[in-house]
């Protein structure tokens, strides 16, 4: 029917701290990810056009299929505004934790 027009680019990002080298991403997104000799993913830092639907689909599969949830498909369609909120959202401040270690 209609043409789905996709603009912009995306990058598949891995959080290396969470990643434990299960290697599922290389199976699910072989065109984006290959593994090093220790089984950890090597992902290109070049943005991939969103119009490349096959790559985008497999990036989403890899993101969902990661057992450690270490992957993230980041859209870079425009120069990103400097966000005040980091990706790992800060924990809500609790009165208890402040008492425990005064700073």
């Amino acid at each position, binding site marked *: 029917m209609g043409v789905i027009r996709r603009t912009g680019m995306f990058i598949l990002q891995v959080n290396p701290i969470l990643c434990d080298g299960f290697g599922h991403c290389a199976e699910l997104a072989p065109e984006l990810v290959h593994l090093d000799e*220790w089984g*950890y993913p090597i992902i290109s830092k070049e943005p991939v056009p969103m119009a490349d639907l096959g790559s985008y689909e497999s990036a989403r599969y890899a993101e969902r299929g990661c057992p450690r949830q270490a992957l993230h498909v980041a859209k870079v369609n425009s120069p990103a505004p400097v966000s005040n909120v980091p990706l790992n959202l800060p924990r809500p*401040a609790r009165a208890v934790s402040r008492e425990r270690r005064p700073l």
Partner: protein
Amino acid sequence: MIEPGTLPRLFAGVTNRPLSLEEHERVFQPADNVASLLEELEASGLVGRGGAGFPTTRKVDLLRQQRGHKYVVVNGMEGEPAAHKDNRLLSTNPHLVLDGAEMLAQMIGASRIAICVARDNPTVVNHVERAIHERARRNLRGPGIDLHTPPWRYVAGEESALVHWLDDNESLPQYRPGRPHILRIGRGPVLVDNAETCASVGLIGRYGAQWFRSLGTAEHPGSVIVSITGAVARPSVLEVNLGTRISNILATADADTSPQAVLLGGYGGAWLRGDQINTPYSNESLEQFKLSVGAGIIAVLPREACGIAEAHRVVRWMAHESARQCGPCAFGLPALAEDLLAVVRGGHDGVAALTRLQDRCGIIEGRGACRHPDGVVRFVRSSIEVFAQDIDSHLRGAPCAGARSKQRFLTVPALEHEEDLIWE
């Protein structure tokens, strides 16, 4: 008042014990002239002295845009085993560092200052504690100062690891996908600055940018504290004018003045060949060799030493100091150390190891949460390049005399058992 264009600045009036608050105010005047701090800091062109060389104003501006309960963290962890500058500064004039931290707190509107010193240096901890008490007795206005003593580890001095420790008692680096990234304690944004940077801010706040720029070069102004180790009569800490020739610094420190190479910027840094030591010591001059002043370390390697054997020792220790959070660092760095050992031993295995080493450098680079693996890769690449002749003779089965002798020049702490490493 210290005359413009003279040294010492950061070490002015020091004796063999820390300056008390009265002595400190006699040497430097009391810090009152802090009305136009932001403009003065911007005009001074100060870059951070912790290693990355990031402009301090940019950091301050970033933090000023943030809201919430802000913190200033003074990083006196001294991660580099070859460096002694933060310890020396904090145990000779802790008040100058605290002055600078208070000015930074005033600029960004922070309500707390946390000063972090590794608990492995109990004397420094004592000196800083006493300085904080002295200020508390005076009842000086301003934010409260807390002393924190994380365990000493190489990566514990990395800013995200330090903030992680303050936030959650773990000295492990954090994952920061986008930069610039604001580190936080709870919800409060944090400004992390090296102790020497704070001390420089303390001087700029008193005497202004023009005075600060009377030393150093146009792009890299001021003075810097340098730790000199390796082939020296005794390891020393000097305050030098940025732009002094490295050969002159070596001569002042009684070091070997015709070395094989000097290591600049610490164990995550790179080598400068012995025939290039007439280069001025400042970032813009060192840029042509892809080097930087970094954390102010000059490790001198004499001609009789074997560079590649030294590199192996350093890389083995750096691999051991990995926080083991990211696979490429936890597995890659020990692999680099093994390859370097094979190169030192030479023969057929060595030839294969050398090509493998170069491949692995490319694989590991840029894939950790922090810059630790990148630093090691830079060091390994620079070692391969600078000690190419050494490697050649090792691979031909004729190791140099330095490798056969047991004498080693770079200070590398003893390896602890992996289970004995303390991270919290």
